[in-house]
């Protein structure tokens, strides 16, 4: 199935050349709208019904902000997507595909097939803030920062424990150091506002990092 790519600003999912972008045609059965203005380009896209699937890159927002919602019966050929990415680190190979209650199964299958054809892994979820990965990872990272403050163990021992005990490639503190505490702050703050759950409230160390970033300090 052919696909076209519509570029709408800076893409966190595809910041660099990628076979999915390079293999796009001028027209196609699937429209992939990337960038931080993807929602605006989706709104302006004519003849939406002609596509098997329209894939709109998401940030922290829900797909429903772009499609509209009503009575829990929304859905059609439009899906959201985002490659999971921790802060400034390179995007992972995982694409979260966002569907709505009545999204066409054929559109979901087409989206999966497209991403997987280009070497990416996919997971399908409903249209909730944080999707799957941020919903699970951000409270864990906040808790790790809190336990570090409480001197449960050293940062090195906490990281080692999670690596050895659970086979994680990185412990929480080294992961945050690599990808940026201020970036973690931004994502978890957005989820805290959306979900109202204190587990997402940025941990003290993330707040400090964000305050320093705003002052231009590293």
């Amino acid at each position, binding site marked *: 199935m052919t696909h076209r790519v519509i570029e709408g600003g800076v893409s966190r999912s595809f910041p660099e050349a990628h076979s999915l972008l390079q293999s796009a045609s001028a027209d196609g059965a699937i429209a992939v709208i990337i960038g931080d203005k993807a929602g605006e380009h989706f709104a302006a896209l004519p003849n939406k019904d002609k596509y098997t699937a329209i894939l709109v890159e998401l940030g922290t927002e829900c797909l429903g902000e772009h499609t509209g919602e009503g009575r829990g019966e929304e859905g059609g050929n439009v899906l959201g997507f985002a490659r999971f990415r921790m802060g400034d680190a390179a995007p992972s190979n995982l694409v979260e595909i966002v569907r709505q209650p009545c999204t066409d199964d054929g559109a979901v299958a087409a989206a999966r097939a497209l991403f997987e054809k280009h070497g990416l892994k996919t997971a399908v979820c409903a249209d909730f803030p944080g999707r799957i990965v941020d919903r699970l990872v951000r409270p*864990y990272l906040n808790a790790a920062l809190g336990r570090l403050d409480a001197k449960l163990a050293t940062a090195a021992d906490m990281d080692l*424990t999670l690596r050895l005990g659970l*086979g994680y490639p990185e412990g929480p503190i080294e992961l945050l150091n690599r990808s940026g505490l201020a970036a973690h702050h931004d994502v978890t703050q957005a989820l805290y506002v959306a979900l109202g759950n204190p587990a997402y409230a940025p941990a003290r160390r993330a707040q400090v990092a964000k305050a320093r970033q705003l002052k231009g300090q590293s």
Partner: protein
Amino acid sequence: MTSKIAIGVVGSGTMGTGIAIVAARAGFPTILLDLDKARAEAAIGQMQAFFAKSVQRGKMTQIEADETVARVTATDDMAAMAKAGLVIEAVFEDLDVKGKLFSALDKVCPPETIFASNTSTLSITEIAARSGRDDRFVGMHFCLPAQLMKLVEMSPGVNTTPDVFDRAWQICLDLGQKPVKTQDAPGFILNYFLVPFNNDAIRLVEEGVAEPAEIDKAIKGAMGYAMGPMELLDLVGLDTQVLLCEALYGVTNEQRASCPPLLRRMVAARRLGRKTSRGFLSYENAAIFGA
């Protein structure tokens, strides 16, 4: 290197059997106590099957496997623990159960024997207080499956003497394990993070955010984890997760540690994970993990 004292292991469930494998494999005479003798003897059978796989995979010879299993004595007689230099408890996660066990062991074991609890959520200091020797008591939390995982979280209780902790630490190294020191805090490091994380994953299923298999795919793909939370829950056992929740939430009152209603329904439906072949995912093979 410590001399090869006898290691006592109490409880022949998944964790106790795994710890006994670790001790015997490291060359320590190992006494495996279970008050249900049939369970203790069944554990020997599981060990033989485990080491048979190790032989098949070229990790040891048949002679080494036979010698290793021969180091293990399975018993239902607590008096056998009188020979142990270190007793590691791996029984039900209940403060009263563990307290009564250690109190009984205190009457059997010589004063120099060090007591260790494999508890994953209870306070080492509180268990030690019921043992009759709180100065010779440490936390030694092995990870599941113990026979494959190197990590041991080691915690001193409030009254543990430094020399006892150092001695237990050295024995842990001699077992071929990798100890990490943590405070005697609820869940230590691993379960403090893992139990709420897994509960959060269950809540995503409850809320209809994603199917269990999709959650695992997302976490493995995004974070590079070897197992997703749903697979891990099924391996640990959903009934065990309920107990972990109750223990952790009971002492922390942290909402993420509270037991999700879906988890209780799964347990009521006897969907306990790998051990019943059905949990959040389905399984065909319930054999002991690894070699």
